Every structure is written in structure tokens, then in C-alpha cells.
């Protein structure tokens, strides 16, 4: 639901949001503002929500990306969606050339401005407004079920149900990496992320596979205990092998799973793992992870969880539909507050965030997370 649609309403909501920052239950009176206490985690003070009545083609949003030019793109259950400058949504479907209406992932080639779309039936390129489909029958794509996509240099990486395909854009040639020629133990790939000179592949039951294009060598990071129900050896490798997503930024690799979260500090070659019973992690069931700086944004089945590994901010929806934010800092009591607005839905599927805002895709609409400004006031939302 879109809660703010006029300047006056926004002002009122901003004031209410400030009030909402006051602690209602436990914790200190310190406002949870972006970086105010030295925390690298920006805090959302309110949400603007969007659904089908606002023009989204489906209530299910699977992927979200704010492109380099500022345009917001959504992958939904019923097409690719662009939020226009005037705030209206424009949908591209199969009649426009999209290979399948369900868009699971979006990646931008920042050099050319092209978008690459992972769909349930092929990979689609959007270039200059034109959609071109790449399928397993008309191209070297390994499989039509494409879960994730990433553009790294001159290569488009497509994580598919039958391995990861790498399309060399300069030579128009495909390579397939699967269990037959890499360190994967199975071909089911969910996610691809760019590391520093390496590529990380999230393999469904194979942990994380690191590929170095310079040497052509693979390295698999696997759960040391090999068990997804118990953690015999925490902080010594991926929490489990069942990888739902990988993300990398600032030297940190994050692995999301349906059984917890893992972080790999590449400079120290150390692992850290979290499960919900032993940490502030909102839920073990994490659909995807988005990395921004040293912070991970986790899309879970119970809301959005944000962490740098030390501090945590969790956004959820209570049984009355109210937005709840819980803030955890080492050595401090947990702060729990009720927000004036809530996530569109607690089942979060994907997140995109930067220092100024967060866009949160859910199974029942899209949420725009507006951060607190430097002084603790809500930042002004802007959607070019």
C-alpha cells in the first residue's frame, strides 16, 4: 500500500515517524538514526508501499534494482516493471519480448546501460528499450530456469538450474560451468556475485564456489560439518551448503541460506555464521542477500534484517500489521519500536539499498524504505 502521495501527507508522516523513534518498550532513549552512534547501518524510519493498485503488474516482486541512471526496475511475477520519473509504473511483458513474465533477477551492465533479466524461461537483455531473449534452444544458455544474473566486465553470468552460463559479450560465446568441469558438486545454481577479481557462484546444495577467471581455477567453500540441521563447527565455513544467494562488497562475501547466514572476510580468510536461535538474525530462511559496503541486507520470510555482523536492525510486521523495528547493538539492550508504517509484507524476496534509501521487494508489494536524515529527521524520498 502506498501510504504517502502528497507533500502534506508526507510531512505528517515524517513527524509521526520521528515520534515513532521514541522507544515504546525496552531500551534507551537514543534515537535509531543513520550512523548517529557510529553504526554503519542506516535506519529506515518509514516505508512507502506500492502494490497492484499503484500500477504494479503483480503483488509478487522478486527482484529490484536501482540502475546507475537512477531508474528503478522491478522483476515481478508478471513482467519487468520500470518506475517512471512521474512515479508511475510501466510494465514490459512477453509481448514486448520478455522471455517469461516471472523476472527473478536483474543486473545492469553499467558500461553499456543494458539490463540483463533472469527469468523462469530464459535470459533477457533489455537494451535501448528493446528486449531480446536468450534461451537454452537459441543460444548457449545452459538452462531456461535462470535464478540469478550478474554482469562482470565483458561477461554476463547466468545462474541456472543446469549450471552457470558465462556469455562473453565481446566474442558472443558461451561457457557452461557445472559439476562436470568445476568445483560444483551439483549444477543447481542460484546466484552470482562479483568479488575482487573473482566470481562467486551460489550453488543450491554446494555452498559457494569461487572462480578465478585469470587462472581458470575453482575453489569450493562448503559447510565443514555437512549438516544443515545442526552446526557442529560454527564460524569455520558456510553455515550450510544450501545457498540461496551470495553478495559481495568491500571485501566481505555474504552467503544467504534457508538455514542461516554466513560471512567470509576475504582479507582475513575468516568465516562467521549466524542462526536465528543464537543471534539477532530475524529468520534462518533467507531468500537473498544484498551487500552495500560492509552491511548485508537480508530478505527473509519474516521481514528484512540488516547487519554488519556486529549491529543488527530488523524490520518485521506484527500480527496487527504494524511495522516493528528491533535494533541490536553489542552491550546494549535491544530496542524495539513500532513504526507508523510497515513493510508491504513480511515475506521479503529481494532488497536493493544504498546510503540514501532501500527498496524492498516482497511477496505482496514493494516497499520504499526511507532513511533517517543526518539529524535524525527522515530523508526526503526522491524518485527520479
Amino acid at each position, binding site marked *: 500500500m502506498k501510504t504517502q502521495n502528497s507533500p502534506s501527507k508526507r510531512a505528517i508522516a515524517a513527524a509521526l515517524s520521528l515520534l515513532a523513534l521514541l522507544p515504546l518498550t525496552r531500551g534507551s532513549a537514543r534515537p535509531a538514526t543513520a550512523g548517529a552512534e557510529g553504526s554503519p547501518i542506516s535506519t529506515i524510519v518509514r516505508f512507502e508501499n506500492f502494490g497492484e493498485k499503484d500500477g504494479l503488474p503483480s503483488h509478487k516482486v522478486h527482484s529490484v534494482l536501482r540502475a546507475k541512471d537512477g531508474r528503478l526496475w522491478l522483476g515481478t511475477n508478471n513482467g519487468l516493471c520500470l518506475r517512471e520519473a512521474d512515479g508511475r509504473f510501466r510494465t514490459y511483458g512477453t509481448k514486448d519480448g520478455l522471455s517469461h513474465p516471472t523476472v527473478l533477477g536483474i543486473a545492469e551492465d553499467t558500461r*553499456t546501460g543494458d539490463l540483463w533479466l533472469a527469468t523462469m524461461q530464459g535470459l533477457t537483455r533489455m537494451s535501448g528499450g528493446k528486449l531480446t531473449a536468450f534461451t537454452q534452444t537459441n543460444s548457449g544458455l545452459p538452462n531456461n530456469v535462470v535464478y540469478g544474473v550478474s554482469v562482470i566486465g565483458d561477461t554476463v553470468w547466468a545462474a541456472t538450474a543446469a549450471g552457470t552460463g558465462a556469455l562473453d559479450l565481446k566474442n558472443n560465446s558461451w561457457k557452461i560451468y557445472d559439476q562436470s568441469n568445476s568445483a560444483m558438486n551439483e549444477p543447481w545454481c542460484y546466484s552470482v556475485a562479483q568479488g575482487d577479481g573473482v566470481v562467486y557462484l551460489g550453488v543450491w546444495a554446494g555452498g559457494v564456489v569461487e572462480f578465478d577467471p585469470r587462472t581458470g581455477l575453482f575453489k569450493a567453500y562448503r559447510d565443514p560439518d555437512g549438516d544443515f540441521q545442526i552446526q557442529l563447527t560454527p564460524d569455520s565455513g558456510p553455515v550450510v551448503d544450501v545457498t540461496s544467494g551470495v553478495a559481495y562488497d568491500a571485501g566481505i562475501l555474504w552467503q544467504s541460506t534457508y538455514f542461516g547466514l554466513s560471512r567470509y572476510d576475504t582479507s582475513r580468510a575468516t568465516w562467521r555464521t549466524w542462526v536465528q536461535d543464537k543471534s539477532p538474525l530475524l529468520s534462518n530462511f533467507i531468500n537473498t542477500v544484498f551487500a552495500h559496503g560492509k552491511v548485508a541486507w537480508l530478505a527473509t520470510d519474516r521481514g528484512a534484517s540488516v547487519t554488519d555482523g556486529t549491529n543488527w536492525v530488523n524490520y518485521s510486521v506484527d500480527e496487527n500489521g504494524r511495522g516493528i523495528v528491533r535494533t541490536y547493538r553489542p552491550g546494549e539492550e535491544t530496542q524495539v519500536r513500532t513504526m507508523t508504517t510497515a513493510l508491504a509484507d513480511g515475506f521479503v524476496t529481494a532488497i536493493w539499498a544504498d546510503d540514501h534509501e532501500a527498496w524492498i521487494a516482497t511477496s505482496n508489494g514493494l516497499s520504499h524504505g526511507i532513511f533517517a536524515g543526518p539529524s535524525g529527521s527522515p530523508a526526503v524520498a526522491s524518485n527520479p
Partner: protein
Amino acid sequence: MKLKRVLLPASLLALVGTGATFGGFTGLRAHERLRSGLPKLALVSCTHCHQRSLKTLPWAKPRRHHDAPDGMAVSPDGKTLFIALNDRDEVVEADVASLSVKRRAKVPGGPFGLALDTAGKRLFVACRNQDTVSVIDTAGLKVVASISVGIRPTDIAYCQTPSGERLVVPNSGSNDISVLSVLPLLELTRSAAGREPYAVSVSTDGRRAHIANRMAVHDQVLSQPASEVTVLDPSTGHIVNRVELPSAHMAEGVTEVPARGWVLSSMIRVRNLVPITQVKDGWVMSTGIAITREDGEATQIPLDEANAYFSDPSGIVASPDGKRAYVASGGADVVTVLDLDRLGAWLARSGEPERSDAIENMALSYRYVSARIPTGRNPQHLALSPDGSRLFVSERLDDRVLVVDTSSLKPVGRIVLGNGGLDDPVRLGERVFTNSRYTFQGQFSCRSCHPDGHVDGLSYDFDGAGVGDNLLANRSLCGVAGTEPFKWNGKNPTLQYQDGPRFARVLMRTDQIPEPQLDQLATFITHLPPTRTLPWSRVGQPLTPSEERGRKLFFATQRTDGTPIPVGRQCQTCHRPPLFTDRLLTSVGTRGAQDTTDVFDTPHLIGVGAMAPYLHDGRAKTLEEIWTTYQRDDLHGVSSYWSKQQLNDLVEYLKTI
């Protein structure tokens, strides 16, 4: 007794001879059938399998080079004309006043497109043959820098942007566009274009580059094809729009029109879905101009007149004041002059239906065509002096540049670069190939469907059974020497036969090409080398591991598990190297609903990576589709045991042939 002594050995000898002949004949047929995998094969020449070396083919032998002018650029003061001589690996500096050649510079790689910087101090050269852009210091007329780009760059444009100087280069062979910075000379981006991006024009403010893509493509074989004008921001290298031009084909020229917000691109309006019996009605191919506005709306207008066609429009330039445009028609030896004020007035008073139907209205062009300037042979490239007073026309097959005074529209002379090569039969054949005088009302030339001798990427309705929904894919003429017979039904034993009386009657709708010219045409075609599909830097290099795996798959005699592959279902049997064809008719399970036969001529595969679409009716848009979508019962080679990785490997190998 004496007679007996003679008869007995003679009889024995005859018997042995007969037996040997019969046995040899039987053995020969058995050998042929075994090796071809065709159990009913009649006795054919041994050369179907035992082929001659490629080195003996006409296209592989040394040939004459000529001074054909290609891209041109005029200095800011209008006094100097730079001319690219692709076939000579040279750039010429000519004095406009005296119409004389001042200097020649060796520029390796086949210079084709030229652009000058604002001050005229640096000349940028797109070198088509070796995939490079070179920078020439105009003072010394020497190459001072060079960089690799995509495959077969055909044009280049220079502009200044907020991000600095930029060069935009359409790479016709790799279907992409390179954006380069000048200082330093670096490739910043390479973006996907349409098919065969061929010409580029940048706006004077450097805000937009428009790239004309030569070939139209279609989604399905029976759907209307379309080409595109790719719009790019030179500052960022981002593609900002792709303007679709339905049924527009062979766009080889593009120009911005100052002060009007228009982009004009030359085009052939192709109607490949219409039976070619309609040639006499002007229904198969006509020529036109596409006007693309800033908002992306495009209008196609005819260049032709009723019963008068100006085939193969190519180079196009607009005057600095935006009042005129000039279009070279390479097949008609004419430059057409467009009055853009009159065209603008027509556009302003025409509604959308009138504009969308304009291209079909041959009575329209008189409204904006103000003159037709006759030229020498095969004008393709145009250049205009900065003040618009001089028009330069490359008369390619005369080795000359025509200079026209634009105030009088009269020639002021010619810059002579060579002798025209009249003593070279290949050159004479190219004149036949590129000229439309041999077709009904000059509607098209051989080049209209075979740009550079290659395919045009379309399938045509040749009036076969099932007129209207039974198309045949165009086939490349490049590397065709030695692969006879021709035509998909394999009925034409020679090129002269292929292009002879029947061809004239069915397709050209005229008298046949006279025999001397027909021989010259065949000579030219047999000298067309295969299309290069690899980047120049890869030519002569070892195969990559993927390509090598694909090569082994191509020559495989057994499946991965050791099961033998029948001879007739091995790739190498029908596509036998070095020609990669056995020149026989074979069934690969592709008979369509309207086809009258199962068997089709086996096409050669040299340059196959650039020959899309594939199969006899062009139903396969990519090489992959041959085996993923249109393979049936392993009839087109045993492929059922391949993994997707193996198919990718095979495709990578095929692209190296």
C-alpha cells in the same frame, strides 16, 4: 589352332576386363555409398569426397588490387579530401581545388571509414579488414596510433562530449558498436547493435550517435523483418534507443540533419514474403529513406518513382543548413537530391496513415526529390565540404571521386585514383554484380540481396510450391567456388546456369545477362573469399579448448560411450572438409509442409558463423536451433548424446570454419 591361341587369351582378357570393370564399378559404387552414407547414390564424381585443396580455388589465389574509393572526409577548410582505399591499404590526401592526389599513406588493415577531428589535425580510420581503428597525423600523413575494435568496422564518427572526445565505431562483423576515447585511445564500451551495424552519424553537439544497421532480422521465418537505427550516447556509451524500421533493409548510410531533429538513413524496402512474381509490379524491392525523429518516431519515404528505381541506396549526407540531403544509389549510378524544406512541408501536412503508407507510394517522391545527378560506376560513399558547396561521390568501380558543385548540381571534375581496372575480369564481374541494369526497371542488383557477396539474412518466396508460405533462405556467395551444384535443390551445375536465362525469367524479369557479362559475373563470384567470422587477432591462431572439443565432436565417429555413429549421420560425411560440403543432396529431416522434396543441397560451412538464418528455409535463427529446435530423429547428424556443453563447443568450432 592359331585362332584358338588368340581367341582364348582374348576371351580371358575380355572376361577379366569385364569382371574388373563390373567389379570395379560395383566396388566403386559400394565405396561411394559406404563413404557418403547414401545407400541409393548413383555414380558421382570422386571429387565430391576427394576435394581439391582450397589453395587451388580462385578466391585463394593472389588477385589484383584496385584504387576503389571508400569512406571520405573533408578538411575543415574544405581544401583537402581524404579518401580511404580499402583494397589498397592506403589513405589518399587529395587537393580539392586542383582535383589532384597530393599524398598517399600506407594504412594497414583495409581503411574503410574516415572521420576528422574538429581541427582537422587527426584523421581517424576504421580499418575493416583487420578490425582496428588507426589515428593519422594529417600533417605527416602517418599512422600514430592504433587500437583493436570489433569485427569489420565499417565507419567511424568523431565528436566532442562533456566527457571528452569520443569515437563511435560500428563493427559490422561482430554486430556491436565500440565507443573510444581519443586521448588516450581506449575502447570504453562495446554495446550490442542490430545486425551488421554499418554506418554512424553523430549530432553536432555530440549528444547522440545514430547507427544504421544494414540487415533486417525476423522473429519467425514468415514474419515481417525489421532493421533498427541504434541510438547511443557517445558520452556514456549507453544505448538509449533502438528505433525499429519494419521491412527496412540494407541501410548503409545515415546522417543527422542539422536544425531539423531528423536522422535520415538509406534503405531498401524489402518484401521478401511476397512471391517474386511480383517483381514486375515493383512489389519485391524498392528503395527509400527512413526519417527518424528525436522522439523515435520513424517514417519511411520512397526514393523511387513509378517505373523508375534507384537501387542500392548507400551513402547519405545532409547539407549544413539542413535544406538538402544527397543519397548515392550504388546500383543505379545516381545521386538523388532531396529538398528537405519540401519534405518537411509534406511531413507537416500529412497525417499518420499517410506517413505510414508513404513508402508504398511511388508517386510521392516528386514532392521532395529535386534532382538526380548521374555518376560513374557504383557510387557508395558521399562527403560534403563543411560549407556544403562541394559534394564528393566515390565512384568505386571507376576508381574516381566525382566532385559536384552543389549550387548548380553540375560536376566540376573528378579526382582520378586509378584506371578502373578494365583489364581485370574480376573487376568487370563486380560491375555486373553491383549494377541493377540487368533487372526489371532496375529494381535491384545482385548486391541488393548479397551485400559484399554475402547473405542478407532473409528468406524469400521463390514461387515454389505453396506460394505465399514456402520460403527459401538466401545463401552466401562468399567462398562458393568449387561447391557446385548451386541452389537448394542442387539443380544448377554452374554459376552461369544459376544466373542464366531461367534466373532472368523468374527473378529478374528481363532478358538474361549477356553471356560475356555472365562469365564476368561468375568470375567475380568465384573470387569472393569466405566471410571472416573470427576477430582478426584470432586468425591463424590455435583453436581454444572449447573450439577443439567442438572440432572433435564434428569429426566424431562414435558417441561418448563408444557407440559407432553411422557414416551418413556424421557431420564430416556431408560437410566434408576442406569445402565442408560433399555437394550432394541429403535429407536432414527438415522437409516443410509445402516442400516437394526431402532432400536439399548440402551447404558449405566456410564462414557459417555469419550465415544466419540456417536450414533451407531459414527457420533456424541460430546455429543452436538447428539441433535444439529443428533436429528430428538424429537425422541432421547424431546429436542426441550431446550435452549442452558439447553443443556449445560444436557451435564455437563451427564459428571458426
